[in-house]
């Protein structure tokens, strides 16, 4: 029997259920599914396992991957080619160019994008927000005002989990908010040394320091979902987090608009920082090729895109999928994405590997995290940031 | 009043009565040797005296003071262990000085004391070595030094020589003996080597299964053993035990040995009257059975016995000859020069002055 072997880190209940849709779809076509889940730290362990598999000369059929990792692997010449399928199904038209950036290498399709997450979201507890006036903040100043009100309510204003990637996620939203999309592109995407040490960047770090004031004492090392839980239970007012956060709300049987409010991070409406899970198809033997193509086709099947993304909290990678099945937040996400894509305000998320290779990403995390934890001052951060980025390139 | 008195001492370990009703007294300057087969309780008794194992009942009185409940470190007793128990991590000097250090003696004074003791034992040149760098004999001396330096009220020695080879043992034995002479120390000494016991002791205590068999001077123990056990235990080769029966020959009490083949005079060690026809055991040590040329000129009662030689063991200085007669085996000690070979017939001379007689039913010696 033909089968695909899939390396991924969607191990939690909801994600796995979503993935099951794909598995069953393939099974109907007579394709078996060999599962190879490797959880942990947004695929850190998975990439290690993948290295071992590739080195041993036996890569899996498809691997869940993010952003620049895809490029890195493509460069090593170990990935397959989906051009025929893509042409046949017209992927070029339905998948946003910003995603294609990662799905293609040297003009060849190598990966099938599953979804689009975006990271510049702010999640608010509706009750707390109402108590504080009910008006969602539109820029940093309003945000700080709101947070102050939360503070007066005696709750943790901003729920944050102190892990490098979470710090980075917050940071990139602040960069986008303070500097706008052009500055984000210059500083983050282009890694422009000047931008990285500019006054705007100083503002970013100052804002970070200010935000730090609104954390509770236990933020360090806390998993993101525990922070979300704080907001859900009303112990905290807001959380900056990617759209996967919605899964927690839904799971707690909360309704968007009724129990919680999802808005773009203040000052970033109209821009979207995205990251996209893609299944990179590795260069497997001819005997497995057919199954691999079938899987790629199944991933891009609109039915799967809907089924998966409604659960996951993200939006479909294809732009031609109707939003009827999605809730308010989902619908907003799809609308924002389409707008941003059209206006050129769609950019890859640094924290999730879509703006820079992992070496640079981690280097930025180093600085951001140390700054946020008070190990270095803003001046030092501005000095170090360009250095670290340069050293990692 | 005696210097050390142990009265009605019992020690139970688990269900095992290791010591039973031990009563011992000793004077200052006594050299008391505990002997007995392995497991008879010698070490346990020593441990009880040292305070390392509290007795179950009974009293230990040292110099007029009941010391049952005194901590070992406060008894002022020194002990030399069979394994020497030297502290491997300390030099010889530190080993010897440790007890003084624990008593808070100052550094200079300690060094002085250690030096003196080392001088006596001729181990000055070893003071900076560690125990692992010493030979057996040297270790033994260090162990002794450790005890000596404290000038304790009582010395306890637990088989201190058993790890040494024969030659060294002889030397060390002499050294301990002269030590006792020179310092007049009060010593309790455990061994299961009867030569050691005989040569060192002023008083021997024979133990068996936790009970005392006999207490006496070496000569009493050797020549007038209280029972068959003591007789057999002390002396090597062991005392010959010959089955006999009392008979009267012309009114003179005699003992018929070897199924009646030989009649010998009733030994002088028996002073009471023994009725005729009693089964007895005649005990005679190998040196009491000699060749004709070797007979003690002062002996009063002798008997000649002809027997078949079965084993000849020349030790160089003497020759031990084992012979059989009427199904009984006995060993004699003859001069090294006597020409003798197995299967030969040989005339032995029994020196009955040295013989003792036991009652086979009670195993006690008849006196």
């Amino acid at each position, binding site marked *: 029997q033909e089968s695909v072997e899939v390396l991924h880190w969607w191990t939690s209940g909801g994600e796995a259920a979503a993935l099951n849709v794909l598995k069953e779809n393939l099974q109907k076509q007579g394709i078996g599914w060999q599962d190879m*889940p490797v959880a942990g730290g947004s695929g850190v362990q998975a990439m290690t396992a993948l290295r071992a598999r590739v080195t041993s000369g036996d890569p899996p059929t498809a691997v869940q991957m993010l952003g620049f990792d895809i490029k890195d692997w493509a460069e090593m010449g170990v990935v397959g080619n989906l051009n025929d399928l893509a042409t046949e199904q017209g992927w070029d038209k339905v998948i946003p160019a910003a995603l294609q950036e990662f799905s293609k290498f040297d003009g060849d399709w190598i990966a099938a994008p599953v979804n689009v997450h975006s990271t510049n979201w702010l999640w608010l507890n509706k009750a707390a927000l109402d108590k504080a006036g009910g008006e969602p903040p539109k820029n940093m100043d309003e945000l700080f005002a709101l947070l102050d009100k939360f503070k007066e309510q005696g709750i943790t204003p901003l729920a944050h989990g102190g892990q490098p990637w979470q710090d980075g996620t917050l940071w990139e939203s602040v960069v986008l908010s303070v500097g706008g999309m052009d500055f984000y592109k210059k500083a983050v995407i282009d890694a422009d040394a000047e931008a990285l040490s500019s006054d705007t960047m100083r503002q970013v770090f100052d804002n970070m320091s200010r935000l730090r004031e609104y954390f509770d004492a236990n933020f360090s090392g806390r998993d993101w979902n525990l922070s979300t839980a704080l907001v859900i239970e009303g112990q905290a007012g807001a959380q900056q987090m990617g759209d996967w956060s919605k899964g927690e709300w839904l799971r707690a049987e909360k309704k968007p608009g009724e129990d919680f409010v999802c808005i773009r991070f203040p000052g970033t409406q109209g821009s979207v920082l995205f990251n996209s899970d893609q299944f990179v198809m590795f260069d497997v033997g001819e005997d497995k090729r057919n199954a691999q193509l079938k899987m790629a086709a199944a991933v891009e099947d609109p039915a799967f895109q809907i089924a998966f993304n409604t659960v996951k909290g993200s939006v479909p990678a294809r732009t031609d999928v109707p939003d009827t099945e999605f809730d308010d937040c989902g619908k907003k996400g799809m609308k924002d994405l389409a707008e941003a894509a059209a206006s050129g305000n769609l950019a890859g998320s640094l924290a999730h590997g879509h703006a820079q290779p992992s070496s640079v990403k981690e280097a930025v995390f180093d600085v951001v995290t140390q700054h946020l934890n008070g190990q270095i001052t803003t001046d030092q951060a501005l000095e170090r940031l360009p250095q670290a980025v340069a050293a990692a390139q | 009043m005696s210097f050390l008195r142990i009265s009605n001492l019992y020690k139970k370990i688990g269900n095992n009565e290791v010591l039973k009703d031990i009563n011992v007294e000793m004077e200052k300057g006594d050299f008391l040797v505990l002997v007995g087969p392995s497991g008879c309780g010698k070490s346990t008794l020593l441990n009880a005296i040292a305070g*390392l194992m509290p007795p179950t009942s009974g009293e230990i009185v040292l110099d007029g003071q009941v010391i049952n409940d005194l901590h070992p470190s406060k008894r002022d007793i020194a002990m030399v262990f069979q394994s020497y128990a030297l502290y491997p991590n300390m030099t010889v000097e530190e080993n010897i000085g440790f007890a003084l250090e624990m008593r808070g003696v100052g550094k200079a004074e300690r060094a002085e004391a250690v030096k003196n003791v080392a001088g006596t034992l001729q181990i000055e040149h070893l003071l900076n070595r560690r125990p692992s760098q010493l030979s057996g004999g040297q270790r033994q001396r260090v162990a002794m030094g450790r005890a000596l330096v404290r000038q304790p009220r009582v010395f306890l020695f637990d088989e201190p020589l058993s790890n040494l080879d024969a030659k060294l043992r002889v030397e060390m034995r002499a050294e301990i003996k002269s030590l006792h002479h020179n310092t007049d120390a009060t010593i309790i000494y455990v061994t299961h080597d009867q030569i050691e016991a005989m040569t060192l002791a002023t008083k021997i205590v024979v133990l068996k299964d936790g009970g005392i068999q006999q207490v006496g001077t070496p000569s009493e123990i050797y020549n007038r053993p209280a029972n068959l056990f003591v007789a057999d235990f002390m002396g090597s080769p062991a005392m010959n035990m010959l089955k006999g029966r009392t008979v009267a020959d012309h009114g003179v009490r005699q003992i018929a040995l070897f199924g009646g083949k030989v009649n010998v005079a009733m030994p002088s060690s028996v002073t009471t009257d023994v009725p005729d026809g009693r089964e007895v055991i005649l005990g005679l040590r190998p040196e009491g059975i000699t060749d004709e040329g070797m007979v003690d000129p002062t002996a009063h009662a002798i008997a000649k016995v002809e027997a078949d030689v079965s084993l000849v063991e020349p030790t160089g200085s003497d020759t031990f000859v084992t012979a059989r007669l009427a199904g009984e085996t006995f060993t004699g000690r003859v001069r090294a020069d006597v020409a003798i070979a197995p299967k030969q017939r040989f005339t032995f001379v029994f020196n009955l002055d040295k013989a003792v007689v036991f009652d086979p039913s009670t195993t006690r010696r008849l006196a």
Partner: protein
Amino acid sequence: MSAASDSVSAGSARTARIVIYTLLIVLAAVYLLPLYVMLTTSFKSLAEIRGGDMLALPRDPSWAAWTKAWGDACIGVTCEGIKGYFWNSIKMVVPAVAISTVLGALNGYVLTKWRFPGHKIVFGLMLFACFIPFQAVLIPMARVLGIFGLANSTSGLVFVHVVYGLGFTTLFFRNYYEAFPDELIKAAMIDGAGFFKIFWRILLPSSGPIIVVTVIYQFTNIWNDFLFGVSFSSGSESPMTVALNNLVSSSTGVKEYNVDMAAAVFAALPTLFVYIVAGRYFVRGLMAGAVKG
């Protein structure tokens, strides 16, 4: 050895005992805390965990998390709990421990009883294997496994664990056999026994204590290994720790701490069992040679 002499006078001895036992009980409680947290958490509901006191006893204890962890929890797209992975680990641990122990025993035997010039260097070189950081060997090892066709298989994992366990097993057995009397080997040689006969009939039957130490040590290390497991196995072939990690550390999903903890306790059961049952022999085995410097 025990410095506690029973000759100390009764009163102070009793106080000393009380102090000793109190200290030990307090220490034991501290050591048990993490286990206590794991156990109590596994019996709580998620809501109670989020809101409640970590050290509190469960208000409403339930086995739900346990049954879920064992049979229903999702790991990847299969929702059959961790029971299958348990068996994977057993399949890996048993041969790996057995092989590395036997090889270690043979090596120790040769290195102490059949010495050849340079045996110390050979031993020293082998011992170094204990100390290399495993992260450094992942990639070349993957290549080698690929060449041997062992990649991605339980046999491959067994092989890896044997390779990097050899240093320790050899060390343990060498130290133990070092103290084993040479005369027994000589006697057996004179009696006509050959190399393997001597090992099998004379040495091995007397190696009980050190076998216990080695097996415990190897068993715990291999059972608990994550790095090799995640790198050289995949999917339903994965050992327990990898499955557990998949269960516990999903990054963007919901965390069911009670299920995690129950699974964690399941994962720890065999090693706990080994330590409880063989703990006494462990100390004895250490005494019998492994500890000697």
